[in-house]
């Protein structure tokens, strides 16, 4: 059971949290919605919830709630640049199919 960040992703997350001035880590989760059934949640975390699991990757605390974990277990979060755009990318081994844009997915 684990969720990992690439070095680049971790560096960006640390940088964003530092500039934001608060936050205990990064919250990753899923919820049901979107054209392929599930959608990712990627948020700053201000506190650790009761049913949160914690992972550490390159110095970043990653929080995942119990219910989301099966959908994202083994996932790697990367930070990439595509043309002018840049942002986080999920490399999720659990995904069976995803919508064209990849914002929602099925397992």
């Amino acid at each position, binding site marked *: 059971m684990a969720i990992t960040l690439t070095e680049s992703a971790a560096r960006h997350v640390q940088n964003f949290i530092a500039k934001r001035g608060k936050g205990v880590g990064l919250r990753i989760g899923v919820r049901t919605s*979107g054209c392929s059934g599930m959608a990712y949640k990627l948020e700053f975390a*201000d506190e650790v919830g009761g049913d949160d699991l914690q992972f550490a990757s390159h110095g970043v605390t990653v929080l995942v709630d119990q219910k989301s974990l099966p959908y994202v277990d083994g996932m790697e979060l990367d930070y990439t640049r595509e043309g*002018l755009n840049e942002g986080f*990318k999920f490399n999720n081994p659990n995904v069976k199919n995803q919508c064209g*844009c990849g914002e929602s997915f099925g397992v």
Partner: protein
Amino acid sequence: MALLQISEPGLSTLPHQHRLAVGIDLGTTNSLVATVRNGISVVLNNESGGTILPSVVRYLADGSVVVGEAAQAMQNEDAANTIVSVKRFMGRGLKDVGEINRLPYRFVGAPSSSVTPGGLPGGMVQIRTVAGVKSPVEVSAEILRVLRNSAEAALGGELVGAVITVPAYFDDAQRQATKDAARLAGLNVLRLLNEPTAAAIAYGLDNAAEGVYAVYDLGGGTFDISILRLSRGVFEVLSTNGDSALGGDDFDQRIHCWLLEKNHLSALGPRDTRLLLTHARAAKEQLTDHVETHITAMLSTGEVIDNVLTRSEFHAMSQNLVQRTLQPLRRALRDAKLDVADIKGVVMVGGATRMPQIKHAVKEFFGQMPLTNLDPDKVVALGAAIQANLLAGNRSGDDDWLLLDVIPLSLGIETMGGLVEKIIPRNSTIPTARAQEFTTFKDGQTAMSIHVVQGERELVSDCRSLAKFELRGIPAMVAGAARIRVTLQVDADGLLNVSAREMSNGVEAAITVKPSYGLSDAEITRMLQDSSQHAQDDMQARALREQQTEAEQLLEAVQHALEQDGDLLDQAGRARIETQMAALRHTLQLADHLAIKRAITALNDATVSFAQARMDKSVASVLAGKNISELEAK
């Protein structure tokens, strides 16, 4: 796959529903676009890799348009078709543009019959180019279009809207022209924001202590000073002043003149002048971090220039320029009826404020260090992006009240039949208070339930319920006699106070709610869309409910009368009324307000003589046992 950004806790967007919003600094010399990503305001790169887009638009004979650096490069070669500083013409008529003869453009006044966006008498000035006559609105739209395209490319989606900054002194025509330009560029304007306010927001002063702040903005060609008062998270512009012909370029000019003197040069050709100005500018920038700089250049004549300029020499030659900014400062303070000691903080805007002698002069003047840790070229765009992010609904829960300066959806009260009576219409600015009188529905009613709702729909069930409370202790009176005054008041913090007061005995009840609580912009948008889509349904529904309510009221009144004075009716008369009552009750099941209305009329007709008889009886009972003189004494 799509690239995701980190949201504030609980604010992850749904797939395909990213609320991408940007802040745009549409400047006289340069324009920038910024957005909030991963919680931080950043200026976005454009296609050429830079962040700053020169506000220059060049029209070509084939109808194509070049914006930015490529247009700027042709400024001298194709002056008549290359429009710089178009912001000076926004919303201005021909007679407002004073320096017409000194500018290389072919100006035309708009035909007076044409409807101009700014509604100016005589129309906004226009410029004849090789691609046709262009208005300043169209020229600005070209700049905005480029910014919009690079923002959409950088964010990977369509923008929901933009906050565009304008000088604090812009009047309605200039603001309207700016809005029109944005619309023409396909941008949804979330708000026009004053430039000094944007700078203050970028520094987070909207979260700082209340007080008065000064914004010192020395751009490439203009100087603006604004005095702002922050109270309850809202900035108010107290005064503005400035010099529209003073900027960083004048400092370059001073170094240029010094170079001419040092090297005993007389008037140079345009190419050499540009060359020396470029070197002068570089030297000025060098002297921000170094105490001296070398200027070396070779003129077209082959003559080589090699000079050393020290910081103190530069300061000495530019001293009167620095001093010229202080006079508008004093005037702005005087206009605001304030003293230097009243200023809580000073914000620096514009690349020219990087010069140490400017910082020093401002520090001396105000007796405090100005805020300079943000890039002064970007600070306005950064602040606009923060505001855009808030307005687009990507805010965290604890600071949403700060910018709630209008009521996004109407506030009202539920009335009989589940209908909404709107008391404060949407888009009312806050603080505001409105009151309306209501009455009782039944005889002897002593309590009233007040249900506060928000939304644009006619039925309570389609609006959002905010609060419910009861007013008790209403004196027993016949239906419709009590007068209950309901007051809705929204204060500057966006808090809604609802109070209900019975006017005869003064009993009162009140409640406080936060009207924006939990309503996201997406919900607000949906509610607004619903209200226009369902306008027809709503009208039908309202008509139906109104008739149903009236029917119920009538049935109750007739029933009550039959119980009390049924003996006044003969068998046939009573049967006639009861038949009509049954008919009316039947129509209540049908969703047809016209049928109900007909049945109400029928029942009313059937009860005319009964009502007459009751009236006679009650008059008789009042008169019974009294003589004429007693009656006349009343």
